[in-house]
């Protein structure tokens, strides 16, 4: 079985003047864009929800728990469908129409803007539930003595969290958050199901067009591995920096 990678440099049969390798790189671009956007959402929302679950307020704890349970127990794929297909229907008609038509038209650099937005939001909210749990575990693993000392020093709740609990929890949860970041990156592949051709979707499309299935899948898998290694390396070096501070 001969492996032939030259097809990557040939022009696509669709006649859009680009090569297959351009398609592949565009897919990679979407993957990275979705992953980074979703990760930002997930970090902010996840840390907030994780904190909520440890606050003295019963309302905050309930809110955090409901959020985590809802977004953790529904498959990510179904969540993407709910955001993309169901949400516009449930909103008031004007908003729903705007989401379905005008959102895409509002930017010129791509035709898939609403797919990108919903993929990022869906992936972000799902990952936030997991980050919330990990951050909560981090906060709860801080010895009770710290909290008692902070209270006896007269620190307010806000100060206690900001100066004491959050930094320590971040340090404790960092390794788990690294693996969570990789998970986000891998889960971005699900965006292909709502039509956004990120790396996996693009791989499949190229395979359909060129029939060089093995070669293109090999290249894509290597790309995923490569990005995983880079992300792991970045997170580990940040971890070393944190340990030293």
């Amino acid at each position, binding site marked *: 079985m001969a492996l032939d990678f030259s097809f990557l440099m040939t022009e696509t049969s669709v006649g859009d003047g680009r090569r297959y390798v351009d398609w592949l790189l565009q897919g990679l671009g979407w993957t990275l864009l979705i992953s980074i956007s979703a990760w930002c959402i997930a970090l902010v929302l996840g840390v907030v929800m994780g904190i909520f679950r440890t606050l003295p307020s019963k309302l905050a704890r309930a809110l955090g728990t409901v959020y985590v349970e809802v977004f953790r*127990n*529904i*498959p990510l794929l179904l969540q993407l469908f*709910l955001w993309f*297909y169901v949400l516009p229907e449930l909103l008031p008609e004007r908003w729903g129409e705007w989401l379905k038509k005008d959102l895409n038209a509002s930017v010129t650099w791509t035709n898939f803007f609403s797919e990108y937005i919903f993929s990022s939001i869906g992936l972000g909210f799902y990952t936030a539930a997991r980050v919330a749990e990990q951050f909560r575990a981090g906060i709860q693993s801080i010895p009770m003595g710290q909290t008692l000392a902070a209270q006896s020093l007269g620190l307010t709740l806000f100060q206690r969290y900001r100066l004491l609990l959050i930094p320590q929890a971040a340090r404790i949860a960092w390794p788990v958050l690294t693996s969570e970041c990789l998970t986000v990156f*891998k*889960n971005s*592949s699900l965006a292909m199901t709502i039509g956004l051709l990120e790396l996996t979707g693009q791989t499949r499309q190229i395979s359909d067009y060129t029939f060089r*299935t093995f070669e293109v899948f090999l290249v894509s898998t290597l790309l995923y591995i490569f990005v995983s290694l880079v992300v792991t390396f970045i997170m580990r070096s940040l971890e070393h920096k944190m340990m030293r501070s």
Partner: protein
Amino acid sequence: MVHLEWSIVTENLPYLAKGLMLSLGLCVLSAILGGAVLGTLLAVLRFSEYPWLRRTVESYVNLMRATPFLMVMFWFYFLVPLLLKTLLGPDSVASIDAFYSALIAFALFEAAYFSEIIRAGIQAVPVGQVNAARALGLTVFQRYRWIILPQAFKKMTPVLLTQCIILFQDTAVVYIVGLPDFLGTIKRIAERDGRMVEGYLFAAVVYFLISFLASKAVDRLKTGRVE
């Protein structure tokens, strides 16, 4: 607000039930074959005395953990028939039912994750136990079978069961290769009848109930152990 009509659910219950059975079946089979059997094997091999064996297993686990499951599933769905064709000749009618390629993909993929959990469990077994087993003259197989693995599994049961729940949620993805699992069936019916809202909301409720109740049961198992 939109008017919701749930008839799409009530009229199609037999199909939905079949889809759910497929999802659950896929989940259970791959958890047993991939998770328990292959995962344990991989975990044990990580402690082998041969470096090449250790490194092979490590590379395999890292490969599976660096690749999206969707990609792994495509690998098996598209490439296994191709491989069979090259091996058996271009004229052979080699095709694998999508269910089996999905099952193999799941089993091999999840085995990596399960093996990490079991490996942590093996490492948590007190060294004294292992030494005592050695001192008693047990063979490697006996050591693992009677001393190490039972203790490792007992410790990791909640984590393993949680991974099974995650596995169940991951099965939703197989509709992409055409398998009529629960989500796939709902999707097809919802798109045919144009009732996506009701269909997906119903699917969300079902998945939520199953996963939520299962994780509560696992929690109960955890607290039940504290004596």
